[in-house]
């Protein structure tokens, strides 16, 4: 019952929106290059499912490698920064600059730095985009150690390293996952968008641009749906990992 009440409203609204969309497009005679009907997109989606799957696999791999690489570097950087206060004061503006870098500006430059058959530029773009939310949130979490825990560890004569591993890191996990949740969707967007600017053309981004270039708009939209699903898979996987990593939280909900 409770489950149905949580799931039903968004599903109903979603179906209504699609029906409304379909009716508007067909009744209003809207040209497909402005907005194709959902039925046309669905037909393309079914027809192109093999291509969508392969492109999503390529983009997903890039996004995943970027996400993991960027997150690992971000967590390590946050740990180092939290240990040395002056460093964290220097690193935050530095990270903010990195965050302000638009992928649109970065992707073409990175594409030129590597061979055209290289997957590295797209993965780098994803990693750079992922870095900031994970770094900032982790740093905040690492800094928020209760003074009581600090004193307790002091009375146990715990070393700085022990303290970091046993108290700071587990205590910061909720913050780390806040960052990862943002980062997981961003990684997919970055991996897809990076392909708009050249480089190896085997992912969702290049399929969207090429379909649009051939004025095959329903096909372009079918790949957009694929990108959307890929982002959703990343986000939900992160949520699942969050549950698994923090049993003390999920156990309370149950």
């Amino acid at each position, binding site marked *: 019952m409770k489950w149905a009440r949580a799931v039903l409203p968004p599903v109903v609204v979603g179906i209504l929106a699609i029906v409304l969309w379909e009716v508007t497009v067909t009744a209003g005679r809207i040209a497909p290059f402005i907005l194709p009907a959902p039925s046309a997109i669905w037909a393309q989606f079914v027809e192109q499912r093999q291509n969508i799957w392969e492109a999503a696999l390529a983009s997903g791999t890039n996004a995943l490698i970027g996400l993991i690489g960027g997150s690992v570097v971000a967590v390590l950087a946050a740990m180092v920064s939290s240990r040395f206060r002056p460093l964290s004061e220097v690193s935050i503006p530095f990270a903010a600059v990195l965050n302000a870098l638009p992928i649109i500006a970065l992707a073409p430059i990175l594409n030129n730095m590597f061979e055209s058959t290289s997957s590295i530029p797209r993965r780098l773009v994803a990693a750079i985009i992922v870095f900031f939310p994970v770094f900032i949130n982790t740093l905040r979490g690492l800094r928020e150690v*209760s003074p*009581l*825990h600090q*004193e*307790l560890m*002091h*009375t*146990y*004569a*715990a070393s700085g390293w*022990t303290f970091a591993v*046993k*108290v700071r890191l*587990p*205590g910061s*996990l909720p913050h780390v996952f806040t960052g990862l949740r943002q980062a997981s969707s961003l990684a997919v967007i970055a991996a897809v968008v990076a392909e708009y600017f050249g480089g190896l053309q085997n992912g969702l981004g290049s399929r969207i641009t090429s379909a649009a270039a051939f004025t095959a708009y329903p096909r372009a939209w079918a790949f957009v749906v694929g990108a959307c699903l890929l982002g959703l898979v990343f986000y939900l996987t992160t949520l699942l990992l969050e549950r698994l990593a*923090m*049993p*003390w939280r999920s*156990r*309370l909900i149950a």
Partner: protein
Amino acid sequence: MTAVSVSSVSKIFNQGRTDEVVALSDIDLEIKTGEFVSLIGPSGCGKSTLLRLIADLIAPSTGTITVAGKTAGAARKEQAYGIAFQQAGLFEWRTVLKNVELPLELRGLSRAERKAKASEMLALVGLEEFAGHYPAQLSGGMQQRVAIARALAVQPPLLLMDEPFGALDEMTRERLQSELLAICAKTGTSTVFVTHSISEAVFLSNRVVVMSARPGRITASIDISLDSRDEAGRQSPHYFECVTSVRQALRGSPLKSAS
């Protein structure tokens, strides 16, 4: 044997600045092995500061402190004391058992030894069936009992407690007082107990040390010898006499010379 020896200790915060505060001045205190001593006084009298000095969480401005014959710093590094605060301060991501195991982990005990010892301590505070729970699933009183079990885990010769029952309701508090006494009797631990409750101090202690504020100093030291520390003890005339003399000492009237 002396468990704790504090001699001519003073503590000045922000020394040499305009907001300088003399928290403690000229403190001398000897605590014998196995003795239960309460520190009582108005807020701001430095009783918590004194406890933290003994715990080597802060350093004295002048004077020396020894714990079990060693300097306070050396005693801390050997985990020669267990400590509990007003807040339980459990680690929310660790189960109850793992919380109690933490000080043992840092001592480098093996997994099996840790588990055995921690389970024993949990049984002592009556929480063995909650070993697998997370702290947030327990009530405040249960969390405080876990904190006490954790403080006792390394079986320290000295137990330092800073208003550990301060945030609990009266019923829970009295039950935990009795439990604490039983544990101390069983383990032979010396205890320094900070409180602002006169009845609590009298019921628990062999000696109540009364302090006054600004500057914090010891104004009286009152020996308590209750025949029994149970419900009958709480009703006995001697208990009420002691409560009265502590109260008078706190007000700073007649008994001032008792120290």
